[in-house]
């Protein structure tokens, strides 16, 4: 299953003061919690003047692309790639 979407999601994030990194630790999507196993890539983009942090994360079975808008601090789920549902 591959979905492109623009859906607000609840995210628990962690700031590690030693590595100076923020990681989305857990996301709640469609009444299910997914815990991050790996942050594949973290990059930033500008939409106009607003800085957005893009996290490409995976819980081992499902891939999520999350967007943190730094103007309002809202998290948006932009992409889901789930192969367990194809089997």
């Amino acid at each position, binding site marked *: 299953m591959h979905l492109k979407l623009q859906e607000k999601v609840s995210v628990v994030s962690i700031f590690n003061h030693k590595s100076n990194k923020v990681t989305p630790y857990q996301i709640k999507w469609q009444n299910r919690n997914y815990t991050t196993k*790996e942050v*594949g*890539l973290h*990059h*930033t*983009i500008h*939409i*106009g*003047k*607003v800085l957005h942090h*893009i996290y*490409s994360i*995976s819980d*081992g079975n499902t*891939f999520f*692309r999350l967007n943190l808008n730094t103007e309002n601090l809202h998290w948006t789920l932009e992409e889901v*790639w789930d*192969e367990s549902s194809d089997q």
Partner: protein
Amino acid sequence: MHVDLNSCFASIEQQANPLFRGRPIAIAAYTTPNACVLAPSIEAKRFGIKVGFSVREAQQVCPNIIILAPDTEKYRVIHKQFIKILMDYSSAVTPKSIDEAIVDFSDPALHTLDLELIGKEIKHRLKTEIGQSILCNVGIATNRFLAKTAAGLHKPDGLDIITHKNLLDTYQNMTLLDICGINLRYERRLNINGIYTPLQFFNSSIPKLQKQVFKSIVGYHWYARLRGWETDNIDFSQKSISHEYSLHKKSHDFYELSKILMKMCERVGRRLRSSNQIAKGIYFRCAYTDNNEFHQSKTFANSIIYASDDLYKHAEKLFKDQFTGKTVRLFAVGCFNLSPEDPEQLELFNPKKQQLVKAMDKINDRYGEFIVSTARMLDTNSEALDRIAFGKVKEMDYN
């Protein structure tokens, strides 16, 4: 030193999405069957899939291949991180394209450095600072040409050095077409003059290359290049700004086509103005599905190109004058004869219009591209998408 990221776009996608790792994937212009493959992953290359395959061909060779559309913003960010790492070793870094760069160590202050060690460190840093899937080839030699040749010897993840000791052995194992810069036409030209191997090319004299084979200074450049003398350290300034677009939905509807053309002109115009330049010439090209094409350029002595709709008006006229209702598959539009924006020259331009263009640019800078646009561009969200041109990174801001 030449550093070349392996299967750049595909490796970045594999880094972002762990589910793609170790699997054949390809980045294509679109995910539709006729779209062109831009970057196959290392695993896809093992199936024989190459750049230029159609998505349909790739899927025939490898039915399980995952086809992805390009994420240009992501690739630009990784490119900047890549260049930033290289800049830690020398201030003279020249990005050659989105996935390759030259690091110049010719400064005498850098002569004591162990370049092999630096090459290994760059490979390690790419993996730890960007991601484990990001591999590169490093080539080290006395000039750019040989460094690029060295970087292509053992793909992927190679590190090779060409010196006077192994130069001839390297040529021995290559064909003329393996030489960067020798295409089929040049190969034929060399063959006609009795040169069939890189070693014969290397052993040819300057008069033969200059007067008989290439009939120009190019012959001497090849003579020097093949010996590891630098001939390619020329920084070409930007001469034009253009946008080429292979239509997602081929069309013969003039109104639909003019909307796409307007959007392309807006992209070119935005880039022209953000580089603080004006243009005095435009270029337009249109290719049809019957493989015919039309292209024309026009220069202006007394007027300037600044606003996107000026560019559009000229491009649309060139298009309209020859359009007979055939189905269009590709548009290219650009401007040339660039010069720095000069307030006096801008006076030639309607002041009210100038203010309007600047105000629109300001709004788009603040809120994002195409927030404000001309009415003609309505419903063109999926057309004339942002693309990375191979070999063009001159407009990239590294600050």
